[in-house]
């Protein structure tokens, strides 16, 4: 998914320079892994489509003499486009992993290697989870009081839950593989 809708959402919340928008996108959607360059291509595309327009801001620096920068703001068409996107039903994205395919086509002789791979993938998931939790801002004590704060929590939960489901599956798959690997060979035939 491109950063286009997210960038438009940011511009609707508050117009800004390209750099400011890139920073805000990084703060709000860190888990999505969008590059700052993606913000500029999203802005170009939004401007081309008439959803966003650029206006001249004040010059930078203490004297204000430096070249004025473009401030991006949403057009009426952009507001309509964003509203339509909000109303669309978002289909869940299927998650497919190479390891699942290996398990599907493996014979019993590969079980020890596949068990090792579940450990390795679980470690990777835990590291990814750690990166997510490290990015999460320590909250001010008290339950999130605004929708904006709650939405950030929900988005983070969605990312974390995906990893949790994967880790649970890896642990369960490992248990089954170990059980079958430890069984006498004869009982594995015909399965």
């Amino acid at each position, binding site marked *: 998914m491109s950063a286009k809708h997210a960038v438009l959402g940011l511009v609707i919340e508050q117009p800004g320079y390209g750099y400011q928008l890139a920073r805000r996108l990084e703060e709000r959607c860190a888990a999505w892994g969008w590059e700052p360059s993606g913000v500029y291509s999203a802005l170009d595309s939004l401007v081309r489509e008439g959803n966003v327009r650029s206006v001249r801001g004040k010059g930078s620096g203490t004297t204000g003499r430096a070249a004025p920068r473009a401030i991006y703001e949403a057009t009426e068409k952009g507001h309509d486009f964003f509203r339509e996107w909000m109303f669309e039903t978002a289909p869940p994205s299927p998650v497919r992993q190479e390891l699942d395919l290996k398990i599907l086509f493996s014979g019993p002789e590969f079980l020890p290697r596949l068990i090792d791979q579940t*450990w390795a993938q*679980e*470690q990777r998931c*835990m*590291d990814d*989870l*750690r*990166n*997510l*939790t*490290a990015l*999460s801002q*320590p*909250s*001010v*004590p*008290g*339950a*999130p009081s605004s929708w904006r704060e*709650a939405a950030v*929590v*929900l988005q*983070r*939960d969605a990312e*974390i*839950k995906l*990893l*949790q489901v994967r*880790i*649970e599956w890896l*642990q369960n798959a*490992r*248990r089954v593989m170990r059980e079958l690997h430890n069984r006498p060979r004869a009982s594995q035939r015909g399965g």
Partner: protein
Amino acid sequence: MSLLSLKAVRKSYWRGPHETSVLEDVSLEVGRGELVAVWGQRGAGKTTLATIAAGLQAPDSGSVCFEGSELESVRRARATHLHEGIGWVQRMGPQSGDFRMIVDYVSLPLLGAHSPRAARRRASAMLARLGVAGCAGERWESLTDGERTLVAVAHALVREPRLLVADDPTANLGVLQREQIIALLRQAADEHGLGILITVPDMPEMAHADRIGSLSDGRLMMARQPAAADGTVIDFPSRQQSV
């Protein structure tokens, strides 16, 4: 030196003639001002790990050290006899009907060391610090799940322990209440240098932890610290606590 250090801890239970291994060679450290969260599926051994870490149960082998000294375990039923530096979050609430008011329950761990009046004063202050001053005159039965959790944390913190251990502190709470509890624990670690170990059945509860781990098949897998592209570990100044 770590506040809490578990090394090569093993624990198994006998169910009839069968021995079931719960923890196999588990090692874990919790430092001052550090929030460590351990996740595991149902039956993974989270409660066993938490009770061993709090000194409420002895491991079969391995060592459990608190502030550099081997921790002497007490029976779980005698949680009031915990090491003075360790707080245990007991979400079951008062185990006897003697406590008419929450403030009396929260002041219980202080009796003996303080007069009843001083103990109540400190208990009231702790309830206020956690934002549940209004519960002081209530009974446990009349509290919501969120209030019960906060009262349980107040009961554990009132002695001002250096280490807090909580087994599934946010059970039955909604997302926003969960955030409130975890943010409070985060604040206690940051501002008071409290070392905290929590076990959780749901990974979003680990969101504000300094270090996280996954318990399965008796093994504890800790996530590696985030590394920058050049391989150096990223330092998070807001999470650093002066010792």
